[in-house]
């Protein structure tokens, strides 16, 4: 049975896929479906509860929360994809080299991975961000630079087994150069676990971005992000629950969606791992 038919039989993976796709579509269509301007202040409607006019209510400046969350969805996705993309690039490159060449190259790269893993990553990110101008770009880069280690280990492990396979020996015997063997022949065979790790990684990148924005060192107001809407909601939690509830739910559902999809892909790639 093929990959797709296995994925489509897995109900939870379908739920994950639907969640992920709908957030995608929503963030692409945001400018067309957003009912208001995210930065228009309406002093007559401060902290209005959810209504048909303001689906998720308004915040302490009278801005429409639904609109701001739509824009926040785009930012979360962007951060998730760019950060994980960067992590995958670094992780795959270092893992491939470590696994393929072995020896000293392997030892140096893998000890560097161990060192990076010694830092509690969230505090490492906090420390690095503290020295930089908080911006979306910086957040993406920093999250990417602190989350490639798992992928390096995965790719290295795949390379260790794949490089002993006969088709790789055949390539060498034919006279193929190492870069061709690594990137054209071994890498495509090693990408399945990377795809799973990347999907799960997006979930944690979204979480980290929200947490950083919540702490005020992530996405800076007035740019909306689920994390900084939560911050606004924190001080008025007793009187305006909607300001905390909806972004919190959005984060939860997004992370859940990516995790379900990631696990679904993993099971579909290798049914033996299910459990």
């Amino acid at each position, binding site marked *: 049975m093929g990959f797709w038919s296995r994925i489509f039989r897995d109900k939870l993976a379908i739920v994950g896929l639907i969640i992920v796709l709908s957030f995608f579509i929503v963030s692409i269509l945001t400018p067309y479906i957003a009912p208001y301007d995210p930065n228009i202040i309406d002093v007559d409607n401060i902290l209005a509860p959810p209504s048909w006019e303001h689906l998720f209510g308004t915040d302490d400046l009278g801005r429409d929360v639904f609109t701001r969350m739509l824009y926040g969805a785009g930012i979360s996705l962007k951060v998730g994809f760019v950060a994980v993309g960067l992590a995958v690039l670094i992780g795959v490159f270092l893992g491939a080299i470590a696994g393929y060449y072995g020896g000293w190259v392997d030892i140096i790269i893998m000890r560097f991975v161990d060192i990076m893993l010694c830092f509690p990553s969230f505090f490492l990110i906090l420390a690095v961000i503290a020295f930089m101008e908080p911006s979306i770009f910086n957040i993406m880069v920093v999250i990417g630079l602190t989350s490639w280690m798992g992928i390096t280990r995965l790719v290295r492990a795949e390379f260790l087994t794949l490089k002993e*396979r*006969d*088709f790789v*020996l*055949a*390539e*060498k*015997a*034919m*006279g*193929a150069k190492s870069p*061709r063997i690594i990137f054209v*022949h071994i890498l*495509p*065979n090693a990408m399945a676990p990377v795809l799973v790790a990347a999907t799960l990684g997006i979930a944690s990148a979204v979480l980290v971005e929200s947490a950083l924005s919540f702490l005020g060192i992530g996405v800076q107001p007035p740019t909306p992000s689920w994390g900084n809407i939560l911050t606004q909601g924190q001080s008025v939690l007793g009187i305006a629950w909607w300001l905390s509830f909806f972004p919190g739910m959005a984060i939860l559902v997004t992370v859940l969606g990516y995790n379900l999809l990631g696990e679904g892909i993993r099971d579909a790639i290798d049914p033996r791992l299910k459990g």
Partner: protein
Amino acid sequence: MENLLQVRGLRKSFAIRSGIFRKTTGHVQAVDGVDLDVHPNETLGLVGESGCGKTTLAKIILALERPDSGSVVFDGTDIHSARGQALEHVRRGIQVIFQDPFGSLNPRKKVASIIAEPMIIHKVGSKAQRYDRSAELLKLVGLSTDMLGRYPHEFSGGQRQRICIARAMAVNPRLLVCDEPVSALDVSIQAQVINLLVELQAELKLSYIFISHDLSVVGYISHRIAVMYRGQIVELADAQELFDNPLHPYTRCLMDAVPEPVPGKIAAAAHVRGDEDSVLFPARGCAFGSSCPYREEPCTREKPVLAEALHGHYVACHQHIPPDEQA
């Protein structure tokens, strides 16, 4: 006759490491002083038991492993010191077929690009030319050209081995190293693949080094046969001569071990004892010594060397003194 491939004094040992600090605790002498010649348009069979160094020897000939000492000269070029153009020439001239037809094809590539791979590596032709050549090669090995767009997992073992052969033929090699090419196949498919190899040799004037543990398969395809035991060539002769007149005790053991389809005949009990220790620490004398039913005093003292016992029939055994030294 000019030799296509000339192997001289080849040695290769592997360290055995154990413990947490991976300390070297011993060596396996995988290839222990091998001399071989392969003539143009000839099949040299290489037989021996599992672990006797056949595959290591093949890997050294393919320049996948570096020998500890000795040389491999292909068409006048030492393959282990060749660089640049000379190495390209060697890489094109020697191709390989492996035992496992499931592992030797990249599962993510279509047949067309698998067969075109050696041409891409050696920058032969344009994309369209390579595709046409792939189709031609597929026909040559008896598969239909509409299979070019399929993936390896859609084929049976015998078909995959044909694809491997097509790939090996892509750059017109002169020597094909076949490392147990039919051992993983059904007996009926084995015959087809071997016959294909025989036909290709007649058509394209190729040389083969045909490695197997199966004496009857090797006997069928080879012109000359080398028998390998614990890293050494113990006997080398024309195929017919070797079967008619096996001189080395180990060769005779191998012959006895070939099951014959004669009802009622019970195979002679194998009298080769597995003696693992001596693989790791070869005794001074003959490697086969401890298992040899004809062992005599010099066998434990001195290592026999490969010498011509009869015309064109070489054996490494103290029981067979070369004719010119007999007097």
